């Protein structure tokens, strides 16, 4: 193979890997936000991502049919706003009515609880939809087609997803690391009791944070719907990688989650050029190495 061709191939696989990395980053970001403040490992994150994709599909293809209103079809752009809000609301409902009773126990209980939520959500969607996946037909016209990147023709929609997600991650990082609200969140992570004594309503903050984190999962779900076929197990396939990302980045570290998410997507993609079957294994190999060398993760605070 000529060198020039090789470089093109690496760049092309890198772009596709980056496209996966976008979802790793967005999901592990939400997971990190939730873990940071609540100390809850939200196993349901993948299922909420899947639910987000299904909501987009339902709003587009089924809702009108179910209600007998043929004209009713909620497209991609409204879904991009509506679905994260719905998922955030659902997340807050779960937090307020169930999850909050478990904070005083060992974190393993909340992990098991969210695992249960995952099974319920998957079960419900397997019951009503095709387990092998349904395509989402609602990709906006303006994002169809390809762009010439010089080294490859890249789908316009995927490029949009990459840019949009980088923006979302940057905004979330800014909110948490640079604003007054973010400072309260970080303080609440360290010492919730004292933050409460200063007159801040910590339980409310916890509920909103959980809603925000799950909303991010919903947003990732909507973005994923036009790329991957919408299936009840799409989250389950992803969540294991997401956990690896969070562990490598450092539990609870925002920057760690984002950077590691994108980086692992890239590494996974580039590995495909050399030895495709090893692509997925690479992530876990890296996790093992990082855990051995820096147990608190690349961006985690050493304690």
């Amino acid at each position: 193979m000529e060198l020039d061709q090789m470089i093109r191939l690496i760049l092309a696989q890198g772009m596709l890997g980056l496209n996966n990395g976008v979802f790793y980053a967005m999901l592990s970001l939400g997971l990190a936000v939730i873990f940071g403040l609540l100390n809850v490992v939200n196993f349901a994150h993948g299922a909420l991502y899947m639910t987000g994709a299904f909501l987009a599909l339902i709003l587009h293809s089924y809702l009108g049919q179910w209600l007998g209103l043929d004209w009713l079809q909620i497209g991609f752009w409204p879904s991009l706003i509506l679905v994260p809000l719905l998922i955030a609301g659902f997340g807050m409902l779960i937090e307020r009515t169930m999850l909050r009773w478990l904070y005083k126990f060992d974190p393993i209980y909340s992990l098991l609880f969210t695992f249960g939520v995952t099974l319920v959500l998957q079960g419900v969607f397997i019951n009503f939809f095709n387990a092998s996946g349904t395509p989402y037909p609602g990709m906006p016209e303006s994002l169809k087609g390809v762009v010439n990147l010089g080294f490859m023709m890249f789908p316009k929609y995927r490029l949009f997803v990459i840019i949009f997600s980088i923006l979302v991650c940057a905004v979330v990082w800014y909110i948490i690391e640079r604003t007054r609200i973010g400072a309260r969140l970080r303080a609440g992570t360290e010492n919730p009791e004292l933050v409460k004594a200063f007159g801040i309503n910590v339980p409310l903050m916890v509920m909103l944070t959980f809603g925000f984190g799950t909303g991010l999962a919903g947003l990732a779900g909507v973005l994923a719907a036009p790329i991957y076929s919408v299936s009840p197990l799409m989250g389950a396939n992803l969540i294991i990688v997401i956990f690896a990302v969070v562990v490598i980045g450092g539990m609870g570290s925002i920057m760690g989650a984002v950077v590691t998410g994108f980086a692992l997507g890239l590494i996974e993609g580039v590995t495909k050029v050399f030895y495709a079957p090893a692509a997925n294994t690479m992530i876990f190999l890296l996790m093992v190495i990082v855990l051995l060398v820096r147990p608190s993760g690349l961006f985690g605070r050493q304690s």
Partner: protein
Amino acid sequence: MTIATLQTGADTGVKPILQIKDLHAWYGESHILHGIEMELGEGQLITLLGRNGAGRSTTLRAIMGMVDRRTGSIRIHGNEFINKPAHRISPDGRIGYCPEERGIFASLNVEENLMLPPMVGEDGMSLDEIFSMFPNLADVRKRMGTRLSGGEQQMLAIARILRTGARLLLLDEITEGLAPVIVKTLGTVIRDLKKRGYTIVLVEQNFRFAATLADRHYVIEHGKVIDRIEAADVDASMERLNHYLSV
């Protein structure tokens, strides 16, 4: 107002700000406070003396709602606070609390730490006033909370609650582990705050520091107030005090 009227406190018409009656507090199953009684008039400074583990810090934590359970009566500005949720106590009572471990947040820089507590009154100190009172803090504004010296952390912990407009300050062991020169500075700060009309509860191990500042001392042992000594009587009660505080 002269020192003499301050000393006699609530008995002679100084407006009572804090009245605690029969306060009990628990951590889990452990019953820590067994009926604390105390009162504090506007502009007064009292200290809680006693040995480690006597219940002095828990008294402050119980006022702030930071215990698992509390019963009895805590009246602040005449209103009952015993059943208030923890996050309403500081704003409704205009209280500033400085915990024993100082509570500086490691992931926040000095300025973020300073701006963290929400305002509880209108006449909080401005940043300019705070930096003129604590000049050291101005130089380290962007430094992270953990990278401060013990003295700087303590000043930050006090400055943080002065900004909020709190008028009743609960200060827990502010001199603990600090160099004498910093303890002296803190003494000047507390005297200045008193002059500005703040009402202060000081939990203090260092009696020499406390003696020069307080209007009244409460001695706490086994979760109860076992003695109450007015500032004027301190000299006469020295023997008793030494007995209480000897380890």
